[in-house]
């Protein structure tokens, strides 16, 4: 019996810190009525030094248009493997995109920034449409986009 309890205590001690490193985050992107086709959106994160840390989501499945998400394309060299398994459909004008994901706790209050690049057929590209620091205080605070995104909010 003591051996079982000891084993449980040990496994709990090993697993608990790992669970504490993640938090479920919901990102809600509301697009404005810009009067065009569906928008391609690249959501990605840069670290405190401004270097690319990774992608969170790609809205739009055809890689030949990713060059129009120009900041993302510059950071990644257009490497589609960066968005394998995290790619969905483009988002229409006036519609919204809600993403729920388990994000590493270390991303928050540590100088990381969430960026969104946007592009729409026959309209101007909008790199860095949104850049918002990932902080606990920023949760629930909508941030307006420059051209195609009405606002973006993340909540815990």
């Amino acid at each position, binding site marked *: 019996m003591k051996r079982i309890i000891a084993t449980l205590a040990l496994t709990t001690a090993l697993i608990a810190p790992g669970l504490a490193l993640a938090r479920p985050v919901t990102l809600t992107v509301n697009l404005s009525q810009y009067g065009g086709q569906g928008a391609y959106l690249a959501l990605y994160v840069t670290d405190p030094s401004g270097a690319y840390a990774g992608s969170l989501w790609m809205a739009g499945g055809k*890689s030949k248009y990713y060059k129009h998400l120009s900041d993302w394309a510059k950071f990644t060299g257009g490497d589609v493997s*960066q968005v394998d398994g995290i790619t969905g459909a483009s988002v229409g004008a006036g519609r919204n995109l809600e993403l729920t994901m388990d994000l*590493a706790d270390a991303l928050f209050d540590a100088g990381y920034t969430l960026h969104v690049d946007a592009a729409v057929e026959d309209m101007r590209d909008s790199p860095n449409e949104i850049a918002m620091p990932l902080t606990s205080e920023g949760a629930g605070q909508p941030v307006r986009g420059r051209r195609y995104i009405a606002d973006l909010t993340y909540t815990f």
Partner: protein
Amino acid sequence: MKYALAIVLAGGALAAVSEAPAATVPATAHAVDLDRETKSRPAHPLLLLADSDADDDDDHDDGRWFSWNEDHDDDDDDDDDDDDRQACDRMKDPSCRGQGNPAPAGTVAPPNNNLFTNGTAPAVKSN
């Protein structure tokens, strides 16, 4: 005799005069035509085509998304994509990427970029 000789000389002179231009004028005219053609044509038509492409590139520099229309001009790309979807269904076969497009969410694990924990894919809702 003198009269006959004069006629022969006059005839020879006329023949010589009429043959000489006949031999030289067309050659000269041809040379002029070639010269005109050479001058009127672009020296390097392919370079001019490249110039017109460069104009398109300038459009891209404006930051406007023209490529969708260009692709329709190319005409085949989008159609090819559709064909590829039929020939290769990535929802059934995640290894089938086709056209260099990324794997859709839910078909493979998200990238191991230390942003996602436990390799769980994001849940997405859109309306």
